[in-house]
């Protein structure tokens, strides 16, 4: 048991969480006293909060090695540092993109920002969880904030329906997670993930596998892997696009950490068993995600199914069960978040007041109406399809390499075939934008400079990091050891 005496210096590594908790309270108070008089001020403050938070994280949470705090409930390591910075960046970009959208739909309220910050806190708790208890609290904190965000537009019946589905299915997944955790806790006698890893290194019994099954189901649900993916298209489609942008990006970092900490670290003793469980889930996600996406006419649904197929790829990294595999999964997660920020960002920028650009046909002839937006979208679609030199290619390649090293030939073949199938619907969007005529006069896209500049940088990053993949690849390999 670590020393229970704490001083300010010893908890320095936990600065991101402590700061964010304080910031949530400040933003809430600011909204109560100032927000009503100056709509939009809370949003600016929140962006400032995120920038300061990233700076504080760089200053305090950049630890050289694993630091376990708060009696084994909290862990700070280089992986947590990288994921937290990515979390700050993803949420800041999300809020930047969605501002005009929120204003147009009359849901620009301070609570929206408070809930985004609390969801980010939940993500951080997941990233730094070192105990079953903290894992669960992180999952709930994130989920609760996100449920409310999905239902935020109260005029929309579809959003309310999506939130209800998400809530009910999410509650079932939480129940699964708790059930699995209670079995594992009962058999190992500890909540601490390091302790569980030690207890499971000894010969274990079937009971652990029973508990593991529930945990795998819960993790698969949270990530949206087939057959636990039913909620995902409905929620992505029903939620306001700004919320879709939010739940499609930052939470993935948290759920990646959830899988890594729970399965790859805590339950490392039964890696053989959970890789065998994840393999069919990954294959099903690839097949269902890519094939069903072809049939979609709604771009948000199409991107939801594409998410499912990307989740399949991330899971394949875990199936490899090696350090290389986890590194590849981390790389894929970061790349996916970068791409998702881009393509949901385009959907937001193409929407105007009273017009939701959520049908594929709304993108017909986008090139003529807005060449820059079309170019950004085309780059993102090429990247998601895995065309070199874009970054998505390297992400897929790393996963396939990790699988090749571990002799998973069938999985390699499936992954490659399904990438080719997936390329069809990504390239169809490019075809619609560049070679089709717009059927009717559609409203103009958002023209404000700042947001367009951010989106341009986002799309450029997909290309630049694809041409120079080494720094990010090295980083991912270094933080997972």
């Amino acid at each position, binding site marked *: 048991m670590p020393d229970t005496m704490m001083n300010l210096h010893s908890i320095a590594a936990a600065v991101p969480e402590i700061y964010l908790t304080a910031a949530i309270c400040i933003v809430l108070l600011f909204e109560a006293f100032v927000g009503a008089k100056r709509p939009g001020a809370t949003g600016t403050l929140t962006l400032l909060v995120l920038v300061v938070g990233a700076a504080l994280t760089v200053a305090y949470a950049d630890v050289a090695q694993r630091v376990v705090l708060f009696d084994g409930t909290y862990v700070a390591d280089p992986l947590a540092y990288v994921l937290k910075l990515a979390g700050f960046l993803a949420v800041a970009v999300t809020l930047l993109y969605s501002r005009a959208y929120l204003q147009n739909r009359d849901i620009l309220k301070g*609570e929206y920002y408070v*809930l985004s910050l609390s969801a980010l806190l939940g993500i951080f*708790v997941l990233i730094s969880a070192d105990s079953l208890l903290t894992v669960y609290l992180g999952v709930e*904190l994130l989920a609760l904030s996100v449920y409310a965000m999905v239902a935020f537009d109260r005029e929309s019946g579809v959003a309310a329906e999506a939130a209800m589905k998400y809530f009910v299915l999410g509650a079932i997944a939480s129940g699964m997670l708790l059930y699995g955790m209670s079995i594992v806790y009962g058999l190992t006698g500890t909540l601490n993930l390091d302790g569980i890893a030690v207890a499971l290194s000894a010969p274990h019994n*079937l009971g652990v596998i029973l508990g593991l099954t529930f945990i795998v189901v819960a993790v698969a649900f949270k990530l949206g892997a087939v057959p636990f993916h039913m909620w995902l298209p409905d929620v992505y489609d029903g939620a306001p696009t700004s919320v879709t942008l939010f739940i499609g990006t930052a939470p993935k970092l948290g759920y990646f950490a959830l899988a890594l900490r729970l399965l790859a670290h805590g339950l490392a003793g039964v890696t053989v068993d959970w890789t065998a469980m994840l393999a069919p889930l990954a294959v099903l996600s690839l097949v269902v995600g890519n094939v069903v996406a072809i049939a979609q006419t709604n771009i948000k649904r199409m991107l939801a199914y594409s998410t499912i197929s990307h989740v399949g790829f991330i899971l394949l990294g875990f199936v490899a069960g090696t350090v290389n595999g986890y590194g590849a999964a981390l790389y894929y997660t970061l790349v996916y978040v970068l791409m998702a920020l881009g393509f949901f960002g385009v959907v937001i920028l193409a929407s105007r007041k009273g017009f939701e650009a959520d049908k594929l046909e709304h993108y017909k002839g986008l090139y003529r109406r807005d060449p820059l937006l079309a170019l950004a979208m085309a780059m993102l679609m090429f990247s998601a399809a895995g065309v070199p030199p874009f970054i998505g290619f390297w992400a897929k390649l790393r996963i396939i390499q990790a699988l090749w090293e571990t002799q998973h030939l069938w999985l390699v073949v499936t992954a490659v075939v399904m990438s080719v199938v997936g390329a069809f619907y990504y390239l169809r969007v490019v075809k619609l934008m560049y070679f089709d005529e717009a059927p009717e006069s559609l409203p103009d896209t958002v023209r404000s400079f700042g947001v367009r500049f951010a989106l341009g940088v986002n799309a450029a990053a997909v290309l630049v990091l694809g041409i120079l993949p080494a720094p990010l690849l090295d980083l991912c390999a270094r933080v997972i050891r």
Partner: protein
Amino acid sequence: MLVEILFYIFATLLVAGALGVITARNPVYSVLFLVFSFVNSAAIWLLVEAEFLAIVLVLVYVGAVMVLFLFVVMMLDINLAEIRQGFTRFAWLGWITALALIAEITAVIWRNGLGGLDVGRGFVSEPANYSNTLELGRVLYTHYAYPFELAAVLLVVAIVAAIALTLRRRPGLKVQDISHQVAVRAEDRLRVVKVAAEKRS
């Protein structure tokens, strides 16, 4: 020995109550069965000398949460026939899943026992000056300080979410504005109308 007998009595009642929750046709009965289950689990906690938890369970769950539940169930006009539609159609799937799960759990325990977990230890009685509340407080604010704080944040988020989703200021809402009522003047409300006297015909 007496404690063991009591445990089995309460455990049986608890399981029976839990079955009642999911089989009762009337939702109000379901809620009452749930109350019954909670009281029985509180009794089991008393047997392991976790008095504080037992009292909290009765006070918070039975006293507050379930009463609220009961209100909600009684106030909502739930059409049961509509909900039950299609229920029996998928009931076989539920039965198969439940039976498979029970079979799996039984098989695991049958073949492996509980894997070194000492379940035959029975109930340990603590010394007379043992205070459950004190012991809980000791670990809650030291070893579990971080999860404890997180739980507090979770509650704040729940409040923010609930208010953000339910508090509406739409036009035409019939609410009392007290300060407006107090500040009212006679001339705002009262209009003196001069009516010319009619001549009697």
